[in-house]
């Protein structure tokens, strides 16, 4: 998993909760990296699972909710860090449809070894986007958070229905996004 996910996660914990809590979960998670993350590095995704699990224990919030929250936070950070991916994009559907064929292609140019999840889009139904997430890692809730973050970014009113496709493993899910309108 790319280091940026870890650095952003810890920054979120520091800002949303406290630097002390961040330090606590890093120390308590018993991480092979020792929690010394750099955004250009690559780390075992299980460290993320441990960090989320520790944070859940410390806060009493479920790991899935924490991941969704992180997804929402992460999307805005994407906008700040990589504005070029937003050029000419006006709606959440446009952005989500571009993940697989544009954003992931660009990521692979910089990190050829990156293991990326797949996002399959189905737009056959007008006003609806059926997005299927598949990964070797159980980050479906993180994906859901990112999708919700995307809708919020474009100030849209949309309903997101989540259908688990991995028997609760979190490695596959189908998101049915239905536009209701635009928030004024």
């Amino acid at each position: 998993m790319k280091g940026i996910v870890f650095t952003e996660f810890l920054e979120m914990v520091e800002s949303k909760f406290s630097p002390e809590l961040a330090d606590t979960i890093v120390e308590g998670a018993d991480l092979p990296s020792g929690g010394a993350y750099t955004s250009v590095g690559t780390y075992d995704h299980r460290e993320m699972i441990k960090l989320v699990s520790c944070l859940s224990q410390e806060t009493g919030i479920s790991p899935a909710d924490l991941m969704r929250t992180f997804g929402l936070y992460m999307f805005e950070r994407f906008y700040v860090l990589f504005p070029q991916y937003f050029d000419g994009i006006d709606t959440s559907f446009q952005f989500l449809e571009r993940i697989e064929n544009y954003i992931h292609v660009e990521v692979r140019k910089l990190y050829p070894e990156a293991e990326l999840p797949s996002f399959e889009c189905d737009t056959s139904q007008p006003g609806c986007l059926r997005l299927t997430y598949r990964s070797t890692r159980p980050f479906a809730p993180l994906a859901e958070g990112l999708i919700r973050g995307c809708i919020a970014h474009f100030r849209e009113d949309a309903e997101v229905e989540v259908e688990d496709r991995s028997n609760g493993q979190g490695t596959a899910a189908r998101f049915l996004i239905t536009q209701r309108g635009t928030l004024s």
Partner: protein
Amino acid sequence: MSTIEQLERRLERERRARKAAERIAEEKTREIFDANARLQQLNNHLEELVRQRTAEVAAARDEAVRASQAKSDFLASMSHELRTPLNAIIGYSEILLEESGDLVRPELRPDLEKIRGAGKHLLGLINDILDLSKIEAGKMDLFLEEIDVAGLLADVSATVPPLMAKNGNLFEVRGNPDLGTARSDQTKVRQILLNLLSNAAKFTKQGRIILSAKRLTGGRGDYLEFEVSDTGIGMTPEQMAKLYSAFSQADASTTRNYGGTGLGLAITKHFCLMLGGDVKVQSEPGVGSTFVVTLPAVCPIAGETPSPERAEGTAGTVLVIDDERTTHDLLERELGVRGYRVVHAGGGREGLHLAREVRPDAITLDIIMPEFDGWAVLRELKADAELRSIPVVLVTILGDREMGYALGAADYLTKPVDPDALLGALGRFHAGNGDVPVLVVDDDPMTREMLRRILSKRGWSVAEAADGTAALSILGRTRPAAVVLDLMMPGMDGFEVLDTMRREAKWRDIPVVVVTAKDLSAEEVTWLNQHAERVFQKGAYTRSELVGVIHDMIARGTGTSVSRRFMEGAR
């Protein structure tokens, strides 16, 4: 746990993260360096590949150039081989035609005319093919010179009436009077117009063909516009599309019905482009065609070859009395190149005045002139004791030949003037019919025999040499009044003979006319123009032309004593 400890831990994590980032950056840098090195290597390899390929392409190009050179050489030598026997065919048929009047069987005449016509046609085809192959090889040279456009037009118009008569066509020339002069390649402009006119004449029956010319003043200099329109069979758009392609006529039946190779228009188009202009066509089937040639008045192509200098008046002075400007222009040019000084009179009274003042060696006289006509001028000339001996050639569209001779005219020519015929007439006054020696140098016995017969008919004695060495040997013993020289001969060739003659003081001033079947390069033409009096392509000249030139050359200074010595030496 104290805040200090927390911060220290955090600092430690940040420090390690920084070091990890630095290590990653270093690794990435190394990867980039390695990738660059690999690219460089690939690039070098590619450059090596490109070098190899370039060498291969260059070799292929050299091979193609060699092949093209071989093709040109082949064409040049083939044309030489073909022209030599053709020259004999045309020459002998002309001799026979001339003599057939005296023959018992004058019915042979049409057959002889067919032989001559077919020979000339074949020669035309060979010349066309050669022209086209030269154009395609980029070896067609331009000889830029000052052209009197009206004169050129008159000249062309004088040449085409037989063509027009063949299909019963009416021919008309519409020349704007202020055509002025142009700087271009006269031979090519003439050929462009003749090609278009002969084309029009070929595809029009019982119709009308108009040649018109005008000068256009434009932002980028003056242009000359020549228009050839006919009322012939015309063309469809499809036929027009492939009009200028070599060997492509309207369709196969065109070739059967109208003849020709289909090279004329391809050559015309190429010539127009070479001269910085173009040719355009408008046509309608069954109505007719109009070709428009536009040429810049000053040909923009650099590297022009200066035309050989004219010898001014060395052959004598001719007074031209005529009220038509075109005749003046034509004679000025044709006689001028042959070394005559031409004096012009626009009417009868002026003509008489100038005849007294200039005392010309010969006079050409038009009959139909306003106020004071040719008959009156001729009567006055012959009544004047001082002017009586000047030979007068009547040049007119109609008139009474017998009356002319009765009044004392020396010769009689009809308009349009055939310059060769006039030169022949003028030459006769000059050279007389004495025993004048001419040396013919040619390795082809048939050609030698033909030239001997042509020249001896004019009263000249002829010595023959089969190669350069034999020619120099004869020159060592005698001094001919003129030399007719072939270029391509075994052993010592014509160039060497001419070079030797021009180096030797005693031979330097012997006039030489080159008659060759060789396809000459621009350098050779330039060299020959400097060293010989005249160059003729075998088969491409008329006998009267050759005879006229030799007359001129002889007229410029030989004596009978020389001739006698020459004859003794040659025998």
